[in-house]
């Protein structure tokens, strides 16, 4: 048990609390203290919930001491992306539109976290309505990368990724529509998981691209991510797209090793142009390590993967253009008055939405319009089917697939804000799994020449979480990395 509780992962904290070596209140206080000290530099949290967090922690301690039932994550702090509804607590989605929006209900994931007795420390920053890959699109300021404060943490779940990477919380909740968990996890040197579509309820997740959105865990170890995944997954009758069957458990698979598994390397991703040498080198080494651990490593092709990104950038904005229609100033959120209802709505939306959100609403509205629907939306859906078929073919011969999580490591703040297409390319390896609805995760496999984390993506077939976690855990154990970032502590020291 480290002296500094913020250096411990969730499993270590749980064991220490169970053993009576520390308390949930002490754990929460340690993290809140670190947030107070260094979140000014990091910008991971939009708001902390000190009172409710400490009260929940105290309740956990009382129940644990009394021998009463506690949840599977009792007393472990978690950072919650500000796109999941929390009853009575502002849920902004990083948007002016919802700056003062206090939902009347809790998201199912929030209820499940409470049932697991995870202690929600606060709500984290994000690209507005989850649209972005750098968290620079938040209306409430940028979040920085804990490895280099001049760089982005990735996005859109950049706040949760930076919080976990920067030791402001051992666990984080993100959402992934087109890489929004995996890309920031890769940039911040942590583990990020997008489960199979339908395993985690979307009820209370403010919708971006409904057919793609999925909530998932972020953590500093594969085992912690698996524990958080198990806590939040499960059927929800309030989500018609929720899978009725019990989710496949992840933790029993963690120490099975990879011997005998056939793992496909998506060669077009690994050797693709635009992949930075440091990323390619670390990922290639990771693949070699898997082979050394006994996996049968083969090259696979996803022939339509190059069409996945353009298809994604039609489907997601189409759905978003409709999902975001409800933000009109009538019922909740921002209202900018106007002489007529239409003018009020238009003024509200003009002022409430940032430029990237407007761009995607326009793209989506256009793609769904009469005369363009077939050429854009329907065509993109056909590509989606082809991508699904590509995966099906690959999984006919492979247990899991691997690729770089992202083409590059974390880029500089401001570097790509004026180049949306360059920004979109961050997610080129991530979106195929969203289109297919299949699980995928990113785990750190080393640093590039600048010491910035590189993420490897592990992908698995529908409901293939066990094998995905199995591969990631084996690799993590074998690599034995210690990627602790010190930029934050250096900055804090300099200031002090």
């Amino acid at each position, binding site marked *: 048990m480290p002296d500094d509780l913020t250096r411990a992962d969730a499993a270590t904290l749980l064991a220490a609390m169970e053993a009576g070596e520390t308390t949930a209140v002490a754990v929460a206080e340690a993290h809140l203290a670190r947030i107070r000290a260094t979140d000014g530099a990091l910008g991971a949290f939009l708001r902390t919930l000190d009172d409710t967090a400490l009260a929940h922690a105290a309740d956990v301690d009382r129940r644990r001491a009394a021998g009463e039932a506690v949840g599977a994550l009792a007393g472990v702090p978690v950072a919650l992306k500000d796109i999941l*509804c929390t009853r009575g607590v502002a*849920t902004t989605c990083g948007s002016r539109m919802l700056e003062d*929006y206090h939902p009347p209900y809790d998201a199912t994931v929030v209820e499940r976290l409470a049932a697991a007795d995870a202690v929600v420390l606060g709500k984290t920053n994000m690209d507005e309505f989850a649209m972005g890959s750098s968290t620079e699109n938040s209306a409430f300021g940028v979040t920085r990368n804990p490895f280099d404060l001049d760089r982005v943490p990735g996005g859109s779940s950049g706040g949760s990724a930076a919080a976990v990477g920067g030791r402001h919380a051992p666990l984080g909740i993100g959402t992934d529509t087109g890489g929004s968990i995996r890309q920031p996890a890769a940039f911040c040197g942590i583990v990020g998981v997008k489960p199979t579509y339908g395993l985690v309820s979307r009820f209370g997740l403010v*919708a971006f691209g409904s057919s793609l959105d999925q909530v998932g865990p972020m953590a500093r170890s594969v085992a912690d991510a698996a524990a958080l995944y198990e806590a939040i997954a499960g059927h929800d009758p309030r989500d018609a797209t929720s899978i009725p069957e019990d989710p496949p458990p992840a933790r029993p698979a963690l120490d099975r090793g990879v011997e005998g598994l056939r793992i496909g390397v998506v060669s077009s991703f690994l050797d693709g142009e635009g992949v930075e040498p440091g990323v390619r080198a670390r990922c290639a080494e990771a693949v070699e390590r898997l082979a050394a651990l006994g996996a049968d490593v083969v090259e696979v092709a996803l022939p339509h993967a190059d069409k996945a990104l353009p298809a994604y950038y039609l489907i997601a904005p189409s*759905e978003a253009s409709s999902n975001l229609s409800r*933000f009109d100033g009538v019922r909740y959120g921002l209202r900018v008055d106007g002489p007529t209802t239409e003018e009020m709505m238009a003024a509200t939306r003009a002022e409430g939405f940032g430029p990237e959100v407007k761009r995607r609403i326009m793209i989506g509205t256009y793609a769904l319009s*009469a005369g363009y*629907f077939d050429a854009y939306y329907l065509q993109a859906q056909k590509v989606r089917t082809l991508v699904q078929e590509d995966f099906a073919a690959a999984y006919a011969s492979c247990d899991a697939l691997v690729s770089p999580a992202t083409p590059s490591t974390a880029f500089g703040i401001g570097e790509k804000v004026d180049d949306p297409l360059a920004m979109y390319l961050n997610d080129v390896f991530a979106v195929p799994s969203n289109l297919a609805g299949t699980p995928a995760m990113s785990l750190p496999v080393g640093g590039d020449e600048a010491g910035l984390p590189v993420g490897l993506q592990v992908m698995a077939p529908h409901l293939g979480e066990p094998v995905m976690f199995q591969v990631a855990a084996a690799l993590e154990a074998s690599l034995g990395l210690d990627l602790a970032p010190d930029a934050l502590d250096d900055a804090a020291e300099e200031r002090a």
Partner: protein
Amino acid sequence: MSSAYEAVIGLEVHVELGTRTKMFCGCPTDFGGEPNTKTCAVCTGQPGSLPVPNAAAIEAAISLGLALACEVAPRSQFHRKNYFYPDMPKNYQISQYDVPICADGHLDVAVDGTSRRIGITRVHMEEDTGKSLHVGGTGRIAGADHSLIDYNRAGIPLLEIVSEPDVRGPEEARAYLAELRGIVRALGISDAKLEEGSMRCDANVSVRRRGDEAFGTRVEVKNMNSLRSLQRAVAHEIERQGALLDAGEAVTQETRHWDEDAGRTSTLRAKEEVFDYRYFPDPDLVPVTPERADVERLAAALPELPAQMRARLTGGLGLSDEAAVTLVDAGLVVVLDEAVAAGAEPAAAAKWLANEVLSWCREADVDPAGVPLAGDALAELVDLVARGTLSTKLAREVLVGVLEGEGRPGEVAKARGLEQVSDEGELVTLVDEAIAADPAAAEKVRGGNDKAIGALVGAVMKASRGQANPQRVNELLRERLTS
């Protein structure tokens, strides 16, 4: 309008389902209540909320489709119809688009004894919107100070039934709507009240020269709140369009508003606005895939439909076509059946329902389908008349008392003092008094002048204030004067 023209009419009917809960959430659907008290995160479109389809509403849609001889789609989809309107919480309506749950059916409609088959294009499911209340000005949105919105109605399940343009006249339009309403009520899926808006009908009307294949320019007419109002509005619109064509003018494609008081239509939207609803499959919902076994179960469970009811009434019960149509349309067959089961003679019970009960409903502005009359009460009334305890005239008064909730017929008759005087002693006294009061008439009867008895009967009836049984009075007078 000159008979050179033929009307081509298609009807779009919306039916609010009487399911316990809304289409996509658990909020209650019952009418009334303070504004915005029957709402939740889902039906007010809160961020993050998700729709879950109401299985009972899906079954209601399938049942109606089956009753209309439609094909039930093995796989249909919910689509989003996108447009901005403040009483629509999400600024899109969840509806069905290219694959409705039921399609390609028909409905046979009779006018003046001639039956015609009207095609049913589709039956689809959707959710209702909220209601806007414009405060200040004229109550319309233009000129209002501000608007209030009540979302209690938002999310109530609706079925939309679209006919082919097969209807050819106002009477047929009315008959179609009446028949459809009868089916919906027989299925028990909605109270289908046109006056209260739980059933709404829009008519697409055009006219063309007789013999022409091509349709004329179509006008959509809205705001008809009764069967009669639909018939009048369609008749007016056919007349208006014919007059335009006669005058060499063109019919404008538009939406027109029926003014019931003025008896005419006026332009609602000057030109059909071109909306692009950007329909696409709702990604929050999975396709509707009813099991074949469930469809078969629903088909087997279909109740007696109006056409079958009419056949039974005219066949087994021996009623006239006219009576059968009247009772079925009015939704009074249940009361009739109960009365017959309680021993009433069918023709007599039917007559009471078709005449007295219906006219009371009209005066009291009560929907006959919900008339507060139990079948066994009607049977009791019929029986009291048959036994001579009540004259037809008194029975009408008793019926009104029953309908006004004063009790069962016997109780009402007693309470209102309307029972016929059958008390022998009392009648004998009255008869003797009449004879004593008019000895001349009595003498005539004794002398064999049978007609003279009428004056004496009249005197007894008058003395009893109409409550004596005339037949018995007649008998008593004869006993006294001829023995």
